[in-house]
């Protein structure tokens, strides 16, 4: 009996943890309705869920009725999408590529509901009521690469990639191109160590890899490896080197060592795409890319703390050139090779 009671208690505690961690809030204002489903991070995750929610808050200021549901585990995606679909909002956002399948399933099941998703591009026209928002990460990576190229004293920088794939290669080849562009300007060769660590979660591997790069003579390392990459930041902190953050302004993690960050402004995508929907544009079945032009990617203000003004000014020039198309950023190995040949 005692044993049964105890097991029951255990189960209760377990359930409580999940229930408490998925709180729910509904705001009522006039006009259109937009809902958002977070992935496991929740809306205060100091990462893209929070950024997405900031975009929603901007919509709210314009009279849009916003609401959200947090997913405590992967199994919640479907339930949360279904719950929100019943409320029939004008648009439902799924945040993050983890929800790709759940959103695809929901859009097949509910043909009259419009869905949008961050970091996923479904094949054109396959899902007429789902729209993808992706980012020109190669553009922000180009900028941080350009800064790294100008800032390196050892003419040697590093890059840590979480996982290989089309979306991730944008970071790598954008960065390589940025470094090469700076090297060309300075008339020198800059070596770039690129390592794929095949994990987004294992901080120890990220830290060890960065330590090795610094030991090999790199003085700046850029990571695109999520939590694993935060190990690169601790390595920089311990060794007193520079590191470049990704997705968010990561300077709070190591204010003295984070040189700059390649931002992905999810809020901009959420806001911009939602507005397109309200304007009556037919967005279903398409994928939209957000880049430097519309503020979808960029570098943070805090960069001015460590990057000298003249380099930042030059970076601004490069940014303008990317926006007006004078510079195109490569996103695959072939494109990068061709790009580099053209650069000379």
């Amino acid at each position, binding site marked *: 009996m005692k*044993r049964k009671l*105890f097991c029951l208690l255990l189960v209760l505690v377990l359930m409580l943890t999940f229930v408490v961690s998925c709180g729910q809030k509904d705001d009522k204002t006039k006009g259109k309705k937009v809902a958002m489903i977070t992935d496991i991070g929740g809306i205060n995750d100091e990462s893209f869920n929070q950024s997405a929610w900031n975009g929603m808050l901007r919509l709210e200021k314009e009279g849009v009725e916003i609401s959200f549901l947090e997913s405590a585990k992967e199994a919640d995606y479907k339930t949360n999408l279904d719950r929100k679909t019943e409320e029939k909002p004008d648009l439902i956002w799924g945040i993050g590529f983890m929800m790709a399948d759940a959103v695809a399933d929901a859009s097949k099941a509910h043909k009259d509901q419009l869905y949008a998703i961050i970091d996923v591009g479904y094949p054109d026209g396959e899902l007429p009521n789902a729209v993808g928002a992706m980012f020109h990460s190669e553009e922000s990576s180009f900028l941080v690469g350009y800064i790294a190229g100008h800032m390196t004293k050892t003419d040697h920088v590093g890059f840590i990639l979480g996982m290989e794939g089309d979306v991730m290669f944008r970071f790598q080849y954008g960065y390589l191109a940025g470094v090469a562009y700076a090297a060309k300007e300075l008339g020198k060769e800059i070596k770039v160590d*690129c390592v794929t660590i095949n994990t987004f979660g294992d901080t120890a591997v990220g830290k060890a890899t960065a330590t090795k790069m610094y030991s090999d003579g790199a003085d700046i390392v850029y990571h695109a490896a999520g939590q694993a990459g935060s190990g690169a930041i*601790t390595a920089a902190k311990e060794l007193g080197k520079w590191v470049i953050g990704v997705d968010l302004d990561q300077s709070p993690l190591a204010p003295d060592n984070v040189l700059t960050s390649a931002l992905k402004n999810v809020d901009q995508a959420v806001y911009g795409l939602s507005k397109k929907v309200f304007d009556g544009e037919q967005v279903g079945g398409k994928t939209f890319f957000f880049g430097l032009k519309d503020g979808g990617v960029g570098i943070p203000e805090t960069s001015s703390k460590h990057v000298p003004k003249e380099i930042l000014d030059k970076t601004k020039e490069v940014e303008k050139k990317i926006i007006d198309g004078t510079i195109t950023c490569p996103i695959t190995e072939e494109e990068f090779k061709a790009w580099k040949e053209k650069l000379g």
Partner: protein
Amino acid sequence: MELLNTVLLTVSITLMYSSPLIFTSLGGVITQRAGVDNIGLEGMMAFGACGAAVVGYFTANPWTGLLVGALFGGFLAFLHAFISVTAKGNQIISGIAINFIGLGVGIFITRRLFNGAAQSSTVPNGIPKVMDLLGLDKTESRLLQSAEFDVTVIFGFLFAFLIWFILYKTKTGLRVRACGEHPGAADTLGVNVTLIRYICTTLSGVMAGLGGGITALSIAYRFTPTVISGQGFIALAAVIFGNWKPIGATLACLLFGFAQALTVILGGVPWMPSEILKMLPYVLTLLVLMVFVERSTPPRALGQPYFKGQS
């Protein structure tokens, strides 16, 4: 010079990777030697990492953090001891539940304390480094930078020796092992099986909490939901790999850390695909298991609750 640097770097990465594993697997050895299985090490590590990071953040003192991390782990393990020893429940199920509870409650605590975020803020001070403590100036010396490691590594080895000594050279150790081999016989000779199992199980959580705390305070510098991602299970494997012996388990952890270090050192070599490298630790583990390790024999009463009077 270059070679020496690579060797030093390999050693220091090995130590960084294996020290949390060493603590945790030593915990595993203690509890399994006393006859209580504990597959909840992962959850205890996560909970310990949470306690260590949270307290380390608020007090700015890594040692207080580590201590609280140990207490957090010990608390969960005490729960496990209650289920396994007093309630005589299934130890595997209890362990699985604890894996969920450790991480779940850990995230819950950080959400309460850090404005809803699932991860803690960065701790101001991590665990001190040996070279820094020795007062060596490493800003100029690349070799010293490569050779740097956390002071907790030393404690790990000390613990391994201490636990080996207690288990094999003292009466207490004999009693602990007796509880794992034949609790009925131990009981007949006046050994308090219940008490010993409680103490050993709780200690295993304390060690796992330390392991988690070290991960949080010397590698990640904060708690995140993925800060402990599988280390608890690797430590558990190290217990079996090391044939339920403290020194064996420590060596197993070092081997695993070394394999991880190799993947890092060889990383970025153009002719080596990163996917193959990623498999290296596991392939190496299997090889060693096939070639070097003698048949491993678990404690005979492992995982079985003891009913008084049972022979």
